[in-house]
C-alpha cells in the first residue's frame, strides 16, 4: 500500500569513523537512505546509533569519511546548515523548553523560516504579525495532524512523557524537513502510545513525503514499519537490508542474543 514510491538515494554516509580519545564510537560506517523510505538503525546499547545521527546532523565531527546529501558532499556537517538543508531531528532525552507551552515549543521549529527582524517580532507589528499568522497556521496543521489540540496551551513540562515525545516530533515537523531523524521515538512508551506513534510516523511519510531515519529498540516496531534496516554493533556495521534479511542474519542474531557469558 505504499503510495509514496521509494525514490533515489537522498542521503549517503560513506566510511564514517568517529572516536572519542581511545573509544571508537563508529568504525568505517557506510549506508544510504532513499527518498520516501523509513530507514531504521538498530543495535544493542552503546552500538553507536545516536553517534551516527549526531554525525549526520552536525553535532559530532567524524575523524574520517563523508556525508552526501542531495548530491552535495561534506566531510563534516554544520548543525545550522543541516537544518537549513531540510534535516530535522528529535531527541532521545527530549530537548523541549519545559516551561513554554506546546504551541510556543512547536513555533520554535519555524525559527529558520521566520524572516522579519527580532524587533518587529517583539512588537508583533505589521509584517511580523502577518508572518506569525502564516506560521501559526502551519503549526496548527501539525497540531491537528498529531492530535494534540487539547494540550495547546499547557506548559510542556506538565505533560506526560508520551505526549512530550509527540510535541518533540511536532517541533521537528514544523521545520518542514525533507529528512527526519528520530532518536528512539518510542522509548518509555506503553503499547498504546507506541501504536499511536507508529501510525504518526507512517502518516508523516505518506502525507508529507518525509524520508525518515529512526533509531529504535523495539524490534516489533522496527520490523513492522521500516523499509530497510542498518544494524550496528560496537561501532561497526554488521547488517544492512530489508527487515527480513536482517532478521535472518547470523551476525545480527549473535549480537542481540549474545554468546554465553
Amino acid at each position, binding site marked *: *500500500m*505504499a*503510495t509514496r514510491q521509494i525514490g533515489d538515494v537522498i542521503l549517503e554516509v560513506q566510511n564514517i569513523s568517529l572516536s572519542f580519545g581511545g573509544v571508537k564510537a563508529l568504525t568505517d560506517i557506510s549506508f544510504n537512505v532513499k527518498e520516501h523510505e523509513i530507514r531504521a538503525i538498530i543495535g544493542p546499547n552503546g552500538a553507536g546509533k545516536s553517534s551516527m545521527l549526531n554525525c549526520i546532523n552536525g553535532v559530532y565531527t567524524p575523524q574520517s569519511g563523508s556525508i552526501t546529501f542531495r548530491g552535495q558532499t561534506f566531510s563534516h556537517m554544520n548543525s545550522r546548515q543541516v537544518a537549513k538543508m531540510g534535516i530535522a531531528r528529535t531527541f532521545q532525552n527530549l530537548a523541549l523548553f519545559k516551561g513554554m507551552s506546546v504551541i510556543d515549543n512547536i513555533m520554535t521549529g519555524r525559527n529558520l523560516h521566520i524572516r522579519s527582524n527580532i524587533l518587529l517580532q517583539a512588537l508583533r507589528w505589521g509584517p511580523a504579525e502577518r508572518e506569525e499568522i502564516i506560521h*501559526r*497556521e502551519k503549526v*496548527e*496543521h501539525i*497540531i*491537528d*495532524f498529531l*492530535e494534540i*489540540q*487539547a494540550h*495547546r496551551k499547557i506548559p510542556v513540562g506538565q505533560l506526560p512523557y508520551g505526549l512530550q515525545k509527540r510535541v518533540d516530533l511536532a517541533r521537528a515537523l514544523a521545520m518542514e524537513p525533507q529528512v527526519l531523524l528520530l532518536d528512539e521515538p518510542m522509548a518509555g512508551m506503553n*503499547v*498504546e502510545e507506541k*501504536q499511536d506513534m507508529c*501510525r504518526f510516523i*507512517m*502518516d508523516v511519510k*505518506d*502525507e508529507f513525503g518525509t524520508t525518515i531515519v529512526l533509531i529504535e529498540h523495539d524490534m516489533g516496531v522496527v520490523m513492522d514499519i521500516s523499509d530497510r534496516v542498518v544494524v550496528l554493533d560496537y561501532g561497526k556495521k554488521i547488517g544492512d537490508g530489508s527487515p527480513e534479511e536482517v532478521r535472518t542474519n547470523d551476525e545480527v542474531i549473535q549480537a542481540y542474543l549474545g554468546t554465553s557469558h
Partner: protein
Amino acid sequence: MSSPSQLSADQLHQATFPRLLLEHARVRPAYPAYREKYLGIWQTESWSEAAIKVRELACGLASKGFTRGMTLGIIGDNRPRLYQAMLAAHALGGTPVPLYQDAVATEMTYVLQDAEIGFAFAEDQEQVDKLLEIADNLPALHHIFYLDPRGMRAYDDKRLCLIDDLLNQGRAYNQSQPKFFDTQVALGKSSDVSVILYTSGTTGKPKGVCQTHASMIGAGRGACEVDALSPADGVMAYLPMAWVGDFLFSMAQCLASGFTVNCPEARETVSTDMKEIGPTYYFAPPRVYEGLLTSVTIRMEDAGRIKRQMFDFFMQVAGRCGAELLDGKAVSVGQQILYFLGNLLVYGPLRNNLGMSNIRVAYTAGEAIGPDLFRFYRSIGVNLKQLYGQTETCAYVCIQRDGQVKYDSVGKPSPGVEVKIGQNSEVLVRGVSMMDHYYKNDAATEEAFDADGYFRTGDAGVIDNDGDLRIIDRAKDVSTLANGKVFAPKYIENKLKFFSYIKEAVVFGSGRETISAFVNIDLEAVGNWAERRNIAYSGYVDLAGNQAVAELISSCIEKMNKELSKEIMLGHAQISKFLVLHKELDPDDDELTRTRKVRRGFVESKYAPLVSAIYSGLPEQFIATQVRFEDGREGVVSATLKVHDVPTFSNSEDC
C-alpha cells in the same frame, strides 16, 4: 412516486426536518447554525450556508443512487457535516442511522446488517478501517464517504469517496437539476421515520427504535416551549450521535428553535471549548457533572490555604442559600450580601472555569444524580434540572420546570405526554414522543405497548405529592432479600457512586441474607488521595489492592450505611461486605453497556468465584479475568482479592 401537486395541502405543510431547515435559512439566513473549531479557530456556518451544504450533500447522495426509503449510516464524533448528512438523508426521504463511534468493528456489524445500510458517512481513517474490516459481512454497503482525508492516501477501495468530492458532485447535480432537491423535500411526510436509534441492549440484540419526524419534532418543540429556547441560544454537541439525547438536542431542538450547535475540536478538548463558546444550554449525564466536580475538588485540595478557606467558606454560604436564590425563594438580606460577595470571588470564576458562565438551563438524565452533586451546581448558580425519558420516547417524558426542581424526582410530565403507574410500579407513558415501531421487529413493538397504547418503560417509579415522577430502579431489577424485604440494587449502587472515590459499584443481595458489593475505585480521585499520603502505586490493579484504599472505601460505605439506616423504605438495605475489583469494568469486556450502565447479571456470572467467596465467608479469593485491549488483543489480569467487612447500623424502622 406521486408528484407534489397530488399531495394534499395538509401533508405539504407537515413539519419535517428539511422543511424546518429551509425555513430557518429563509427567516434567519445569516444566523449561526453550526460552529466547529478548526485549526484552533471557531468556524461558523450560517443557516443559509448549512442549507446549501445539505442541498449539495443530498444531490451528491442522489447522484450516487440514494433514494427514498434507504438508510444512511453515520459514524463519527459530532461534526456539522454529519448532522447535515442526516438532514440530506431526510431530504431524500431516507433515514439516518447514527452508530456509536467508539464501538469496535464487530459490534457495529449487527446494526449495519440489521438496518441494511448501503451508504455510510465515516468521520476518519479510524472509522473507515472499522467499516472495511467488517465489509465482507456487509454485502449491502457500497458507498463510504469520509470527512477527514488524513491517512487515507493509500486506500484504493472503490467504495470510498471523500466528502469534498461528494459535495462537488452534488453541486453539479444541483446545477443540472435545480428543482430536484425542493421536489424531494416536498415529498417528505412527517410520518416518515426520521431516525433509527439502536438501543444499547442490556439484554439480547440491540433493537432499532424508529422515530418519525412528527415525534422527534414534537419532542423538540415541547422542550423548547418549557425553557423558551430561541435562536440566541447555543448548545455544545459532544455526546455520542447514536444516543437519543444528542439527536433530541442537536437535531430536533436545534431545528425547532433555531439555536446554534457547537461541535468541539476533539473529544479531549470539550472543557476548553466550553470555556471559549460559553453555551447557554447544556446537557450532560450525571457522570460528566461528577467528573467536573471531582476535578474541581482535587484542584481545591491542591490549592493554597487562603484560597481553600475562601472556597470552603463561600461554598457553605452557597449551600445555605444558593439553590433557594435560584428558585426565587425568600432569603435573608445578610445571606444575600454574602452570596453576592461569593459570586464575585468564587462562584463566578468557578462557573467561568467550568465553561458555564452563560448557562441558562442545564439538564441531566440517564441516571440518578447525587443530592450533593445536584445541589452543588444549583448553589453556584447553574440552573441544573432533570429530565426523564428513553430512546423509545425521544428522551421526552418528564421535565423539571424552573422553580420546581428536586434532586430525587424527574419532574412533571412534558407537554403532550401522559404518565401513569402500572403494575409492579412500572412507569407507563403515552403521547407525542412515542416511537413508531422497532425496526423489523413487530413482536417487540407489540410487547412494548399495552392495550391502551401506553409505552412500557420498564422503570419502577412513584408519583409524589407534588405530582412529580420519582424513579427507583428498573422494574425487573427490584427484588427481595431472603427475609422478604425490598432490594433495589441500583438505588444502593447510585448512593455508592455519589462518593467521589467510587467510580462504579455492583451490588448483590437478591434472595440472600445480606447485601454485598463490588467496587471500582476512581483512579483519578483515589490516585490523588494516595499521592498526598505518599502511598506508592504502579497502576490501577496495584492501587485497588492497597489496604489503605480498602479502608478508605470501607469508611465511605460505613457512612452510606449510616445514612441509609435513617431511611424509611430502604433502611434495611445496608452493605455488610465488599471487595475492590482488580480491574475497571469496561464496555469492551461487556461488563458495561456502551452508555456505561452495569450489566449486573453478566458481572455476577463472570465473577462468580468472588460472589461465592463473599457468601461462604472466605477472607480472600484468587481470580483471573480475560480483558480485551483497545486494539482487540486479549490478555489476562489476575489478583487475589480480599473481602472486607463493614459495620451496619440498626434501622430506625426496626426500633
